[in-house]
């Protein structure tokens, strides 16, 4: 029953998505509103059907309906309810179903959003149906996958009595409930700006309204992608037991590459908006972002690259390759066809300007993405060309990404400080004075305090410099407002930042990135690691911590058995509490899977892993890692999210203005800057 229902829903959704796409393109071409209306209805219906399929799968999982092939693959009667629910995305077919659900939800959002945008005073706007048609085509591809090569709804007859449960690594931490949905919401969301870009190219109209629109639709998935990547890093840190959070694993790279190009896009689109420049480049970036998400999915879901995340060999590889080639070729053809509408209107006026900072920023992000792409793809290239089995080691990525990242940290402050068009040296001198002094001071203090690692030192100094420049951007207008209006400092600051949420939200995002950079540099450079075999009651020292092994015992849980070690910690001679690292034995896993015990702090994390123990419980082998400032990475992620939210939130004044002048907004007509209205 469940299998039939789910499979039928996906098949009907596939047909509707195909029909809707065709209707959208016909409607766009002919300007016939009836076709467009059909396409819009199809878009909503696809979402309803995929949601049905998704809920059917959840019901089958929760009810342990092992006649559904996917349930038999990942379900188990002993798995706790929470892990049963999230096991939907613990293997290939289910993760594509989640993908399709999020994609169709975005499609429905696009339909909802475009309700009043198709019929304009100037006649039907063909960009809207073209974008919807493109997005429905992407839907067709993923629905094709779940109806055919990655169908999770095969009927098993006879049904097995029980299943193996999800992959043990994926049921070891509740974070698996958060990380994939966040990441997918970001990853899949990149198909919306892609569709809007293709829609605009097809319609042959890339105006200022387009720029604003596509930027907003990129900010949302960008925020989710950022959080998803960080949540993945956190998962890796809390579960995998090596005390690190980033290993340049192909899947991490696959999530990171579109983030890099999307970030580049969010910057270059501002140049396009302000100066009408870099149009071709900007649109190339958003198309590349989407292509990289498809490539990433292909790399990690087809089994061509070995990875923690790679599921077993599956037949979907060729499908992805064909889709990738189709998207690549049609996008290139479209860009070539429309190249005349993408010509630059403005030109660079001066080397010392914000445009230049954005240009350099874009080159750096593009270079970064290329470095990661090459390192990820090289094993495939080498095997195809020379037949040699190789992998590219982490040092390659580190050696090349650290200098790029350092320059980006520098630009995170310098870019916002430079004015558009032409900066004067005097202005630069005025703005840069205090941040430079602060950075030099920090450099001296750090050197005196014994920071001898040059790259970490440089990261800290550059971060202080950039943070100083950002502070100046907040303080200068606040002081001006405070002096002219007599408002209090806090109120003046609030009025200033709310008058241009996009800009100040962006600066908050920048400061979050600086916090992350500091956390990464500190934790990667000053990490200490020790491993000891201790008898009961014995203790060992790492950094300022003294770790005493008390006892080890076993526990039984419904889906697994566990072995827990108890330790008592002293920090600098003071009691610091107790930590309980454990090993978990899953019936389906060959090896025990550890749960490290982590004592998190902004200053330093203490990370304990139970490696082994003797059968009499008298001895245990513990690995201890002390890494400073790991917490800053998660903190920075929170700041990034807050800044992005602030930038996205439409202020009340802006919403009112939009409501009163919808046409001007829609056509991208001249808007009076909000400052001038006061």
């Amino acid at each position, binding site marked *: 029953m469940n299998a039939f229902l789910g499979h039928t829903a996906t098949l009907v959704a596939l047909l509707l998505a195909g029909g809707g796409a065709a209707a959208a393109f016909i409607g766009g071409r002919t300007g016939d509103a009836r076709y467009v209306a059909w396409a819009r209805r199809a878009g909503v219906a696809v979402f309803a059907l995929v949601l049905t399929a998704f809920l059917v799968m959840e019901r089958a999982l929760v009810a342990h309906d092992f006649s559904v092939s996917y349930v038999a693959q990942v379900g188990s009667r002993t798995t706790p309810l929470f892990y049963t629910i999230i096991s939907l995305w613990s293997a290939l077919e289910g993760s594509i179903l989640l993908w399709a659900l999020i994609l169709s939800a975005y499609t429905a959002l696009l339909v909802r959003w475009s309700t009043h945008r198709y019929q304009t005073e100037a006649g039907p706007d063909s960009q809207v149906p073209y974008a919807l048609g493109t997005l429905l085509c992407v839907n067709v591809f993923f629905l094709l996958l779940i109806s055919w090569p990655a169908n999770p709804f095969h009927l098993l007859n006879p049904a097995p009595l029980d299943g*193996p449960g999800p*992959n*043990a690594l994926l049921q070891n931490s509740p974070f698996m409930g958060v990380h994939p949905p966040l990441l997918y919401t970001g990853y899949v969301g990149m198909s919306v700006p892609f569709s809007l870009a293709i829609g605009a190219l097809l319609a042959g109209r890339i105006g200022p309204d387009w720029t604003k629109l596509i930027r907003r639709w990129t900010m949302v998935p960008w925020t989710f992608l950022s959080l998803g990547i960080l949540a993945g890093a956190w998962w890796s840190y809390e579960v995998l037991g090596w005390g690190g959070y980033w290993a340049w694993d192909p899947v991490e790279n696959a999530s990171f590459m579109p983030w890099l190009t999307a970030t580049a896009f969010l910057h270059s689109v501002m140049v396009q908006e302000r100066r009408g420049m870099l149009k071709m480049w900007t649109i190339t970036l958003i198309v590349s972002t989407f292509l990289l998400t498809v490539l990433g999915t292909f790399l990690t879901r087809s089994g061509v690259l070995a990875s923690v995340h*790679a599921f*077993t060999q599956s037949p979907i590889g060729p499908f992805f390759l064909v889709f990738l080639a189709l998207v690549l070729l049609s996008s290139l053809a479209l860009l070539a066809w429309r190249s005349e509408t993408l010509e630059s209107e403005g030109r660079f006026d001066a080397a010392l300007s914000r445009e230049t900072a954005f240009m350099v920023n874009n*080159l750096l992000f593009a*270079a970064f993405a*290329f*470095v990661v792409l*090459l*390192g990820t793809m*090289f094993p495939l290239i*080498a095997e195809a060309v020379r037949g*040699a*089995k*190789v*992998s*590219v*080691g*982490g*040092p*390659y990525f580190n*050696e*090349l990404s650290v200098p790029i990242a350092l320059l980006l940290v520098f630009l995170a402050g310098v870019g916002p400080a430079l004015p558009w068009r032409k900066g004067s040296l005097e202005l630069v001198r005025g703005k840069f004075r205090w941040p430079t002094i602060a950075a030099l001071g920090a450099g001296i203090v750090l050197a005196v305090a014994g920071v001898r690692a040059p790259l970490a030192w440089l990261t800290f100094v550059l971060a202080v410099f950039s943070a100083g420049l950002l502070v100046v951007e907040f303080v200068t207008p606040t002081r001006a407002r405070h002096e002219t209006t007599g408002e209090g400092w806090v109120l003046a600051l609030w009025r200033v930042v709310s008058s241009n949420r996009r800009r100040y939200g962006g600066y908050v995002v920048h400061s979050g990135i600086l916090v992350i950079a500091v956390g990464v540099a500190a934790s990667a450079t000053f990490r200490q690691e020790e*491993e000891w*075999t201790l008898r009961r009651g014995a203790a060992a020292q790492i950094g300022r911590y003294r770790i005493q092994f008390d006892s*080890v*015992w*076993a526990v039984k849980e419904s889906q697994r*058995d566990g*072995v827990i070690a108890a330790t008592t910690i002293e920090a600098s001679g003071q009691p610091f509490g107790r930590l309980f690292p454990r*090993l978990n*034995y899953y*019936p*389906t*896993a*060959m*090896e*025990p899977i550890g749960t490290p015990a982590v004592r998190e702090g902004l200053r330093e994390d203490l990370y304990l892993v139970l*490696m*082994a*123990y003797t*059968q*009499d*419980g008298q001895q245990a*082998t513990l690995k201890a890692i002390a890494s400073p400032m790991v917490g800053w990475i998660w903190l920075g992620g929170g700041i990034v999210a807050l800044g992005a939210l602030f930038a996205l939130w439409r202020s009340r004044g802006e919403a009112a203005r939009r409501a009163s002048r919808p046409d001007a907004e829609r056509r991208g007509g001249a808007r009076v800057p909000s400052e001038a209205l006061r």
Partner: protein
Amino acid sequence: MALSGRKASVAVGGAVVLLVFAYLIWGGIGNNLVYFLTPSELWARGPAAYGASIRLGGVVEASSIRWDADKHELRFRLVDAAGTTRPVEVVSTGLPPQMFTEGIGAVVEGVWSPDGVFHSHNLMVKHSNEYRAPPPGSKPAEYYRQLFRNQRS
């Protein structure tokens, strides 16, 4: 049309940046490649393989495991899956995974030095990607069951 001075300098600057970037990437990849080899392939490469990053995969030879508890140092020999090749002597620091035992597939990452010893910094026990139940009486399960028995007594 001849390039103006400004355009030419931008083009030259761009080319220089690109070349430097390409050179860095080329060197970066070349120095950081990890080769996947079996013991027989390692012997076939001979001294050319000294010093390179290698991921060596094979089977742990019977009665070759020596564990030095004081130094936390593990020594063993790896042979090809067929078991016919000359064994490669491996030394690694740190406790091996609990699955580690004679006759099991193992992968070591490290460097082969001219004294013929492979210095591993990462030891992994090889099992297929499919998750399946460990055979009864296998080492990890036995381990914690013993702990249970001791707790009860």
